[in-house]
């Protein structure tokens, strides 16, 4: 019976393992999206400002009286960028919380508390031992029996037998109790997680999908803007170079070559920026898929095959075994 109880605790606890794996995968998928998105927004703004510098040259060469450097348009204001970075940071907090919660059954605090309960069981354990033993199926230290024979002056003898309960529980029993308490704690944590977490993840999924869609659109928009900014910079560079070649310009040949050599470098930057944004969009799509997989995982009533279940059971058993062996022998 006791063995079945512990087995039951292990079975219920083990279904948390794939959830924790999905939560960890989600957290890993979010990190590059947050970092790369922040860089993408800043790069796009910096490039747009560089283009504005080129436009200033054109405006002055055309003697455009309407040109005012103060009216240079801003692609994304600090407030706009902050709105994006804040929502990404909140998403990161969400994923970290999921990882912490789904790993809750392996809580070091819980382990420490259970060890403490076990090691504190001495004389009190004698009173508790019978009931604990019956639940956990653990053998206690056998009680001792003392036989005393007394011979009186008259030669008569009397024999008394007294039984003394063990003064302390054996280390094996104490460790067994600690392990059982740890399993119970894990069960309680799992019950709490199982009850609360799935609803929150499922509820969150459409918002994460929406966020990823908007973020991917945002990045696609930036991709178009950046591509045209680079085009414009290249086109103006080309025009400046050809203009410098006109008769009578007397441009320094070295400076002229240096200007020409800028062209392939700008084209390389354009290609790299485009690839970076394309990979960011792929990372965003992966994030959406990873969260959706997590939402599906928590809704499954019978998520794993028996074989997988047994493998997870073995994992949890190993973890408990490690916990048990970490306890003091005496």
């Amino acid at each position, binding site marked *: 019976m006791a063995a079945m109880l512990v087995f039951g605790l292990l079975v219920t606890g083990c279904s948390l393992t794939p959830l924790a794996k999905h939560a960890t995968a989600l957290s890993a998928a979010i990190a590059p999206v947050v970092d790369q998105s922040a860089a993408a927004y800043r790069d796009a703004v910096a490039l747009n400002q560089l283009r504005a510098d080129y436009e200033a040259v054109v405006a002055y060469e055309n003697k455009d009286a309407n040109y005012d450097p103060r009216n240079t348009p801003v692609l994304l204001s600090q407030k706009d960028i902050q*709105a994006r970075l804040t929502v990404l940071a909140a998403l990161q907090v*969400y994923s970290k919380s999921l990882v912490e919660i789904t790993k809750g059954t392996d809580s070091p*605090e819980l382990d420490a508390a259970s060890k403490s*309960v076990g090691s504190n069981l001495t004389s009190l354990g004698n009173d508790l031992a019978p009931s604990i033993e019956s639940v956990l199926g653990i053998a206690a230290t056998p009680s001792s029996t003392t036989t005393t024979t007394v011979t009186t002056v008259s030669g008569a003898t009397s024999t008394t037998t007294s039984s003394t309960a063990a003064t302390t529980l054996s280390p094996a029993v104490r460790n067994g109790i600690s392990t059982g308490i740890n399993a119970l704690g894990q069960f*309680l944590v799992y019950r709490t997680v199982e009850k609360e977490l799935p609803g929150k993840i499922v509820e969150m999924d459409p918002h994460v999908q929406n966020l990823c869609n908007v973020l991917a659109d945002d990045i696609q928009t930036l991709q178009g803007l950046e591509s045209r900014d680079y085009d414009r910079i290249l086109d103006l560079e080309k025009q400046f170079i050809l203009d410098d070649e006109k008769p009578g310009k007397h441009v320094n040949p070295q400076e002229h070559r240096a200007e020409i050599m800028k062209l392939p470098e700008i084209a390389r930057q354009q290609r790299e920026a485009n690839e970076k944004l394309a990979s960011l969009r792929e990372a965003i799509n992966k994030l959406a898929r990873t969260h959706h997989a997590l939402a599906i995982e928590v809704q499954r009533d019978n998520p794993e095959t028996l074989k997988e279940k047994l493998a997870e059971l073995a994992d949890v058993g190993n973890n408990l075994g490690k916990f048990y062996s970490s306890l003091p022998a005496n």
Partner: protein
Amino acid sequence: MATPTIPLSPEVRAAYQDLYDKMQAALDSTMDEATIEALNAWQPEVDQVLTKDDLYKLNADTAVFDALLQQINDTNTGLKTLQGQIASIASHFAMAADIIAAIDKVLTLVPGV
């Protein structure tokens, strides 16, 4: 060039993008300064239409991001509560250990109790 209504419909956007791409292809394939100057004067007009449409989208996205932030923060608050519940389970075990230790001490000091 008259500015069309923003946001652009997909068909209008595609037409402007196609015009832009053709101008860019022409710019990339010539060394004739007069052609480059002419295209460099007109292509930015087309680009402006596309950019205004893009800025409209970015602004609309900002509003969506703001709304989503509220949703995510609400969930984060719920998760924090859940973490507190889990922590309290461990703390209850720790408390049990303390109580057992205290009773144990009393029993050791006063064996007759």
